[in-house]
């Protein structure tokens, strides 16, 4: 399957980083209250360790929970979010393609038939209008192949 899209979602990555940073900072403040009496160089060292650990753990959380991997070809597409199971569909399973915007302002390509499936194009850093055209072409081509 090609092409494959898996851009880094800065907001989700930052969120993962901040979660671990706050947890570690909280642990230090609660269990080592004497940190405030330490020399500034030690405090800076601890801050650097906190930032480093948060970066490593945040990246792991991002990969497990938020990272999107999307690939498609003329027959269908595959979408995987974090460590969840990969979802795959054929374009021919759908008959309508529409463009939506959710409350966060992210664009979504909605593929509809009896069921609907949303592709989060903003998060995949795809141009929503161009990808809508591409998805419509692929759905129509698939429908034609089916009817022949």
């Amino acid at each position: 399957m090609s092409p494959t899209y898996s851009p880094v979602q800065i907001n989700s990555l930052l969120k993962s980083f901040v979660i671990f940073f706050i947890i570690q900072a909280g642990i230090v403040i609660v269990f080592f209250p004497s940190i405030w009496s330490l020399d500034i160089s030690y405090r800076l060292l601890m801050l650097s360790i906190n930032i480093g650990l948060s970066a490593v753990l945040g990246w792991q959380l991002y990969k497990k929970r938020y990272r999107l991997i999307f690939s498609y070809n003329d027959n269908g597409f595959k979408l995987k979010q974090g460590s969840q199971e990969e979802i795959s569909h054929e374009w021919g399973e759908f008959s309508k393609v529409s463009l939506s915007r959710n409350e966060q302002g992210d664009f979504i390509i909605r593929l509809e038939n009896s069921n609907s499936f949303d592709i989060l194009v903003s998060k995949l850093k795809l141009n929503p209008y161009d990808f809508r055209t591409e998805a419509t072409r692929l759905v129509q081509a698939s429908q034609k192949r089916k009817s022949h």
Partner: protein
Amino acid sequence: MEHVSPTVEEHIAKLEKGLMSGRGRWIADFNESHRNFRLGDVEFDLLIEGNTRMKGFLLSRLFSFLLNPNYPVSCFVLSTKSLQKLDQNFLKKVLALIRSYMKKKEVKWSWLFIFSSERTRSLKSAVEKIDDQTFGVVLIDVDSKEMFHSDSYLGKQAKRFVKV
């Protein structure tokens, strides 16, 4: 496949991008767009759906909840694809179809944009006579860049959606 002049197609794309990016926020939040939407035997180039109750963050959401009505709205776009049959009778038929759609989907307000060229000038008076207050109909001549609108508040204000 029928030909749509690039200018008309460009205008439709511009209108869609504008509404989907919040140009219609003075009245509604348009958030769902369908290309080549078929209603009865008429294929609209574009249908954009929205709601008068804006989504937002905390204060703007509360403000919208307290002050704005919760009305689903829709915006239909027709272009020169239908020109050979776009006369007053066709316009009546299109409006009837939109009315039935509004009834079925409980849509309170609708707009109809017709992107056309010189050939539909005869429609001008027909459009200007429409006084249904739940409709805003706008005829846009892309060659002369003139806009004619229906005699309703929605029609008069609809020019804020589009720049020709």
